[in-house]
């Protein structure tokens, strides 16, 4: 007797949800990212208007001056939905934890040359700026319209909290977990003349109400100028004792920035590509906020990067200008 093993395939009647089929055409299998990211925003038939904003619906397209015919066109080039985002960040976090453990176990902080230590300490007040960035991205998530863009903003918000926490942990490594370095950093953030323009910029943004403007001002302008300066490394500086240690501790942040930039650029490009009015509006925001950001960051250059700072700051600004030109948002 022979036994023949057979398989029977059962074809599902439908491959996908109606919303997915309508957006991506045909009833075909799509990626989890597409399934989990688009057309999940409640669009109409709202009940009462919110007491905190009785002029508008609870979810409303009019909370930004940017206008889109379709608010679900914002694609994330990284294709992050909850699972893929968590998996990716878990990998990065695992590597970062290893680095922190290694530095602590081998007491590498004690081997840091004084200029490197100063550079590390100068990064600490940035944790307050990162927390502001977290708040701004939370605002975008809360008041934004369209599930694909607000999803990305929530991930960015969480990332910023992570960055603030990693900066805090660098501080705790530097001061032997006494918290003194963090207290000193907070005093600098609140009182030092050099930090006040940046603090003021962050705080001014906390009261802006247009969520897309916040996205442009924080994620495109401030990050685009500040991150390459603060976490960039002038050529040759890695040879200093302890510089590699600091590089290990900030690697999460350095890896995060170019990845997040892809998402920011995609969002801004999609909105600017929608209409000439959007483009003009966003270009105007870029112009205004970049003028303020450049003025706010300039006094921090020697603090963050010492003597090599000026050259790095020039590079950062040039790279940022090129990025803005590529997005078609450079001032005419």
């Amino acid at each position, binding site marked *: 007797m022979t036994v023949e093993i057979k398989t029977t395939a*059962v074809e599902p009647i439908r491959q996908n949800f109606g919303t997915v089929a309508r957006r991506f055409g045909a009833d075909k*299998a799509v990626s989890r990212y597409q399934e989990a990211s688009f057309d999940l925003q409640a669009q109409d038939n709202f009940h009462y208007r919110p007491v905190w904003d009785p002029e508008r619906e609870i979810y409303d397209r009019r909370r930004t001056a940017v206008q889109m015919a379709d608010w679900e066109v914002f694609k994330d*080039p990284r*294709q992050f939905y909850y699972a893929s985002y968590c998996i*990716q960040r878990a990998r990065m976090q695992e590597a970062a934890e290893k680095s922190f453990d290694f530095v602590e176990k081998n007491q590498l902080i004690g081997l840091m040359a004084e200029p490197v230590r100063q550079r590390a300490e100068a990064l600490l007040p940035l944790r307050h700026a990162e927390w502001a960035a977290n708040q701004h991205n939370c605002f975008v998530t809360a008041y934004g319209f369209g599930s694909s863009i607000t999803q990305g903003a929530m991930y960015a918000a969480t990332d910023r909290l992570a960055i603030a926490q990693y900066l805090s942990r660098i501080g705790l490594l530097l001061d032997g977990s006494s918290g003194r370095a963090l207290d000193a950093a907070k005093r600098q953030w609140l009182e030092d003349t050099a930090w006040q323009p940046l603090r003021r910029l962050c705080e001014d943004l906390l009261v802006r109400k247009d969520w897309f403007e916040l996205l442009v001002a924080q994620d495109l302008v401030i990050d685009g100028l500040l991150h390459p300066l603060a976490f960039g490394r002038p050529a040759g500086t890695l040879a200093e004792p302890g510089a590699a240690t600091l590089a290990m501790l900030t690697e999460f942040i350095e890896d995060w920035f170019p990845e997040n930039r892809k998402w920011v650029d995609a969002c801004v490009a999609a909105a600017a590509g929608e209409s000439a009015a959007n483009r003009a509006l966003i270009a105007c925001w870029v112009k205004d906020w970049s003028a303020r950001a450049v003025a706010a960051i300039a006094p921090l250059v020697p603090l963050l990067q010492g003597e090599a700072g000026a050259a790095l700051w020039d590079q950062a600004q040039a790279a940022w200008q090129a990025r803005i030109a590529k997005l078609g948002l450079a001032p005419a």
Partner: protein
Amino acid sequence: MNAPKIQSTVFMALQVNEDTRPIIEALTRDNPEAVVNRYPGMVKVDAPLRLVLKRATVEELIGSDWDLQSFNLNLISLSGNVDETDDELVLQWNR
């Protein structure tokens, strides 16, 4: 006397899951002659003579970096001589 016709088909059989979806799409994109056979829990991609899996295509589809060797995690079987670099994996019969 005619030599018997040699079967030159190569194939790659993969599990069906979220990880292999972009791999299968990359295979169909880079190998127009490939035939995708779907079974419960498995997808078998047959191709006459040659089948190539390119890292760049998968990376474009998933929007992030991808290690070519990670396709082994979901690989059920393959046939053909393997020629693998960091950038692409080629299946064909070396004769």
